[in-house]
C-alpha cells in the first residue's frame, strides 16, 4: 500500500511539474478539514446548488435543501484532498466574485451567477482529455465538478427532486416493458 502511494505521489509530482500546478498547492490539499469550514458556508453552497439546478416549473436545489446533502457528503464521504479542493474553490469563487462584480455572490443577479459558474466550469477543465483524467485521479475532482455532481446527486435523491423533479415510483408492482412516453415525461428517479 505504502509503496503504491509513494509511486503515485512521484507520478503526481512529475505531472504537476509539467502543468500549471505548483507543488505547494498539492501539499496544501492534504490538510485536515474543520467541519465548520463547510457548515459556515451552507448558505453559499445552497445558492451555488440553486444556480446549477434552479427552480423552474419544478422545485430547484435550494427548495430541496440539497446543501445539507452536499455538506454531509463532503464531511463523511470525501477524501481530504477533495475536501480541500472544494474549500479552496469556495474561497476562490468568493474572491473572484468580489473582484469581477464588486459584490458578494448573494447579491449577484442570476445572470452574473451563471457567468461566475461558467468561469469555474471552464477553469476545472483542461484542453486535453488526458490531463483531465490524470488530474482527476491524482489531484481529485475539481471544485466545480464536485459541486455539480454533488448537487445533482443531492437533488435527484431528495424527496422533492425525486418526486417532482423526476418521476418516483415507490412500489411499481408490475413491469411494463414498452410504453409510450407521455408529454413532458420525466425520467425515473431510481433504476
Amino acid at each position, binding site marked *: 500500500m505504502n509503496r503504491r502511494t509513494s509511486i503515485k505521489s512521484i507520478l503526481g509530482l512529475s505531472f504537476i511539474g509539467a502543468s500549471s500546478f505548483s507543488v505547494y498547492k498539492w501539499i496544501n490539499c492534504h490538510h485536515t478539514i474543520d467541519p465548520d469550514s463547510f457548515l459556515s458556508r451552507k448558505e453559499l453552497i445552497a445558492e451555488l446548488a440553486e444556480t446549477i439546478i434552479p427552480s423552474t416549473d419544478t422545485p430547484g436545489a435550494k427548495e430541496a435543501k440539497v446543501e445539507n446533502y452536499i455538506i454531509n457528503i463532503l464531511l463523511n*464521504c470525501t477524501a481530504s484532498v477533495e475536501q480541500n479542493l472544494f474549500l479552496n474553490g469556495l474561497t476562490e469563487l468568493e474572491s473572484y466574485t468580489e473582484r469581477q462584480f464588486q459584490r458578494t455572490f448573494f447579491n449577484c443577479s442570476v445572470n452574473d451567477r451563471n457567468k461566475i459558474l461558467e468561469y469555474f466550469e471552464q477553469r476545472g477543465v483542461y484542453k486535453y482529455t488526458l490531463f483531465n483524467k490524470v488530474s482527476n485521479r491524482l489531484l481529485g475532482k475539481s471544485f466545480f465538478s464536485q459541486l455539480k455532481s454533488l448537487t445533482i446527486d443531492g437533488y435527484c435523491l431528495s424527496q422533492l427532486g425525486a418526486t417532482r423533479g423526476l418521476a418516483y415510483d415507490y412500489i411499481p408492482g408490475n413491469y411494463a416493458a414498452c410504453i*409510450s412516453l407521455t408529454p413532458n*415525461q420525466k425520467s425515473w428517479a431510481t433504476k
Partner: protein
Amino acid sequence: MHISDKSSEKNTYDAIVIGSGISGGWAAMELCKKGLKTLLLERGRDVEHIKDYPTANLNPWDFKNGFNNTIKDKQIDPVQSNVYNPENKHFYVSDKEHPYIQDKPFNWFRGYQVGGRSLTWGRQCYRWSDLDFEANKNDGIGVDWPIRYKDLEYWYDYVESFIGVSGKSEKLAQLPDGVFLPPMELNCVEKHLADSLRKDKEGHVLTIARVANLTRGWDNRGPCQNRNLCTRGCPFGGYFSSNSSTIPAARATGNLTLRPFSVAAEILYDDLQKKAVGVKVIDANSNEILEYYAKIIFVNASTIASTALLLNSKSERFPNGLGNDSGQLGHNLMDHHSSAGAYGTFEGYKDQYYKGRRPCGFLIPRFRNLKNDKGLDFKRGYNIQGDGEREGWEDIQGESGFGKDFKEKLTAPGKWTIWMAGWGECLPYYENKISLDEYEKDKWGLPLIRINFSFKENEYKMMKDIEETSAKMLRNAGFVDVGSFNYHKPGGTTIHEMGTARMGRDPNTSVLNGFNQVHAVKNVFLTDGSCMTSSACQNPSLTYMALTARACNYAVDQLNKGEL
C-alpha cells in the same frame, strides 16, 4: 472419543449443518423434512425474514449520505466496501473483524448472518448441461465430474419447483429449460437486439434472465413488486432466500435448532469409528467452546470457509485436513470472470419507455465451443448478461452545462443504451488455492485463510473475445457509440467462488464422491461451491441447491440403511 460428559446428550442431534446460506438452508430444510433433528450452525447473527430488513422500505432521501460509503467504511472494509452500500452494508462482514490474506488480489465478499449471501445474491438460475459436466473429461483438464445431467435433472426440477424461478423456455441443449414461472419481459431495445441476433447467420438467442424472482405468488411469497431493491431483503418475499423460504420451512417441521453466533472451528473425527462425530464450535460472543454431535454433518459454510474448516480439522488419520488424502483440498479455486463486455446507445424508440424496475436483465446463452469451434484460441465459453434502459440522471450528469436547460435534460429520459458483459468459465488450476496461514490467527484463535488466485491465459483470451464479440453484436444491431471494456477486476469479484474440495470418481485425485460425500469420511458432505469440479459459465447457486437436495436424499437413505 469426544462424547464423554453428561452434557453431550443434549448436544446431540441427528444432523448438523454448518452455514445457513443458500445451500445450508436447503440442507437444513431437507434433513428436517426427512425427520432428522437438525442443528443449523451459523457464525453470524440471526436475520429474521422481513423483521430484520431495516432498509427495505426506505426512500432514497432516507439515506443521509445517499448511496455513498463513508471514508471510514472504506478504511475499515477495504474489500467489502467495494460491493456494499448503505442499503445493504449490514448484510456484509467487516474486513477488520474478519481478515484474510491475499497473496494476490482477491475479493472475498462475505455475509456472516443467518441466510448468508442468499440475502444479497444475484438470483440468476441456470441449469448446467452435459456440455459442462463432460468438459473436463473431453479437454483432459482437472478431473471428470462423477455426475452427468441425468443425475441432477430431477433435482433441478425439485429445487425450481420449490424456490420459484421465472424464465422462458428456449430448448437449448447447452442451457436446459427448467420449471418456470411466467418470464419477466424484455423492453424495446432488448427485443431489438434479440431480433438482430436471431436474424444474424449465427442465430444467437437472447432471452430474459431466469431469476428466483416471483412473477406470481408462490409458496405464500411474492409476487415480486419490481422495486429492484432485492439486496436489502424483500418485505414481499419476492425473491428466494434461506430467510424467506428454506429456514421457515425447516422450522415448521419442529426438527430445527438454529444456533447463530456459532463459529465452527473443527470437525471432530473419531479414529476408532472412522467417521466424524461432531463439530467443535466457538461461541462468537462469549468465546465459549462447545461440542455438538451428530450422525451426519453437512458443511455449507461457503466455498472457501468450508474448505478452511476441513483444513483446520486435523487428526492422526488426517494430518493435512479432514478427508485430504488426495492433497487436493484447498486447490483448484475458481471464480467466473465478468470484467469484459461492451455498451452502446441506440437512436430509435425515442417515444418508448418502461415502467417499473425489473430486477434482472437479459441473457445470451453460451454459443462458443458448443462443439470445438475452429479458430478460437481458448477453451470453454461464456454467456452474456446485460440490460437495456434509457439513460437517467446518473448517466447524464457528466455532460457539460448547468442551469435551466441542463436541468431539463437531466430530468428527461435519455438515450436508449445497452450494457452487457460476458460471464466466463474459469478453468480449475491446481495453483489457484486457499491455505491456512501458519502464524496469523483471527480473534477466535483460528488460522487466517490465505488466498492465492489469478486468472490465466485461457480466461484473458476469452475476455478479449467477449469484448470483440459483444461490441460486434451491438454494431450489427445498429447501435452507435459502441465501446468495449475490460475492467480487469481481480478474482472473487463475481462472487462465484468454486472448487477447493472437488468432486471426482477417484479418491486419489478428488475430495468428494458423486454424492458430495467426503471419500474417506462418509458421514461428512460438502454441497456448497467447494464441491465444484469445473466452473462452467452459468451462475452456480441453482446447481448448489440441486446438489444439496440430492445429497440429503442420499445421506438419509444411507443412514436408514445403516451405512453411515
